[in-house]
């Protein structure tokens, strides 16, 4: 094993390692965010569907109320 790297050189490697970790976590959060977006879209569609159905069928609306 060679002598310890000087601080300025070692610092870059250490920073790179910690940045890799940070980047992976952020990428993961990004992917999960896009999944959340899809869930939100589906929920909106479902809500619209339910609202339309209630409008078509006034008897049901009374039931709900």
């Amino acid at each position: 094993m060679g002598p310890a790297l000087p601080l300025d050189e070692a610092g870059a490697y250490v920073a790179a390692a910690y940045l890799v970790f940070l980047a992976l976590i952020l990428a993961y959060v990004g992917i999960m965010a896009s999944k959340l977006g899809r869930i939100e879209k589906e929920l909106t569609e479902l809500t619209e569907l339910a609202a339309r159905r209630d409008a078509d069928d006034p008897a049901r609306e009374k039931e709900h109320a």
Partner: protein
Amino acid sequence: MYGRGLKPLSIASVAALIGAFALVFFYAPLDADQGFIQKIFYLHVPLALVALGGFVTGGVYGIKHLRSGSREHDMKSYVAIHLSIILGVATLATGMIWAKASWGAWWVWDEPTLVAFLIVFLLYACYQPLRFAIEDPDRQMRYAAVFAVIGGAFVPLCFMSVRFAQAALVHPRVLDQTGGGMPGSMFFTFLVALAGMTLLFVTLWKFELSSKHARAQLAALRRRVASA
């Protein structure tokens, strides 16, 4: 309900990780041999340990799924393995950076822990292709569970045989010095980092389970609304 307790858990993992990294850079002493570059140790080793722990956890939930047949255990096993693969990428990347800085090469073959980790990673990289090559959902869950059990047993065996294969151990063997040469302050920092990484894993695990559960419920609701 997987979302329960997610808020305190996230706060705890952020606090533990920030605390750990603060300890790494402001408290832990410089390593006598390696100097500043040894700071990667506090990131690389917890990542590796948590990833391996995640693989074994996946195996344990695989056994539970085989015994109960419940979808819930299959999801838990799947998400644990999936997250461990992501942490495995981080482990290999940080390990390569460390190898480059200490030995001047991006990859070293006479380094048993790194090689064993690579083999385990290659095996688990097949988990998703296998899973999604099976169409029938029940069979998919069962086969994935069988894979998780086999893989969980393979992890320790692989580390043993690769470690035996190299007589000369050259890894920056900081962990081996525990009890021996590693100063207490370094060990304490390492433990905090390990705790932080474990908390992060559990948080992400519950987070993803909650998301998957929400999607499954949404799909069920859509079916009900469409058929009604």
